């Protein structure tokens, strides 16, 4: 892998508008019946302006944004051998319906451990106006590719 990518910051992704039906679809897909993902009145009782998204919803945006790095042929990662090693979300506030979000990806770390290549990316998810919403940190492992 090209070590010079460490510290690289990618340009903001194009705006992603969070829709109520996408939140519902994602909640259905994780088999979570919680009404706060589906009913604005329930969300408002809990103090949210609209339905909120489940804690891992941001992966929809950050997985796509991270492909800028891991699928970059010049970076030299063997994508066919990639597995997910670690994932972490820090929520500055819940994602909610109506948010228009962008992602800025930074390559935080590139290292080798036990013959595997490890790449850690940090995705800063913010509103288009710049309000921080989620920081997602992802480590992917390319198994047995370190030379």
């Amino acid at each position: 892998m090209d070590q010079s990518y460490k510290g690289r910051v990618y340009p903001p992704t194009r705006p992603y508008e969070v829709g109520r039906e996408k939140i519902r679809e994602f909640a259905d897909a994780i088999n979570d019946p919680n009404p706060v993902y589906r009913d604005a009145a329930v969300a408002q009782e809990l103090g949210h302006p609209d339905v909120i998204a489940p804690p891992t919803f941001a992966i929809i945006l950050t997985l796509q944004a991270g492909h800028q790095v891991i699928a970059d042929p010049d970076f030299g990662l063997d994508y066919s051998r990639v597995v997910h090693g670690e994932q972490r979300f820090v929520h500055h506030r819940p994602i909610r319906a109506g948010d228009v979000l962008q992602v800025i990806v930074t390559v935080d770390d590139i290292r080798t451990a036990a013959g595997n290549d490890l790449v850690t990316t940090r995705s800063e998810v913010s509103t288009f106006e710049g309000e921080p919403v989620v920081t997602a940190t992802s480590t992917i492992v390319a198994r047995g590719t370190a030379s």
Partner: protein
Amino acid sequence: MTTVQAGDEIPARDFPISRFDLVRYAGASGDFNPIHWNERIATSVGLPNVIAHGMYTMAVVVQVVTDWAGDPGAVVEYGVRFTRPVVVPDPEGARLTVGGKVAGVRDDGLLDVELTATVDGQTVLAKARAVVRPPRAG
């Protein structure tokens, strides 16, 4: 609810995982890696069978926390390390067992929650931790 203390248990739950769940998650999340739905491709890369998306497992596990907290918006941090794939054969599927406990209460009231996730008694996540605002009184 009474005051939350370190050592408090979060009720354990079982979650079945079927091949259908993985196909639906692929569609909703946009992660169409075929190792999560195509047995031929999964076995061709050395896996025993189709495996669940790590992010599907992660999303299911945190439900014990969001239900316990009452408001999913109370989860301010959540992280895991994926240590063992969750193999999902068809039609048997897999059964994920999730438990948790309050590891500590911070000075500002935030709760450190530690989670466990096992399949057939084997741990599939390490360092599964959440930071949660305490459940509301009353």
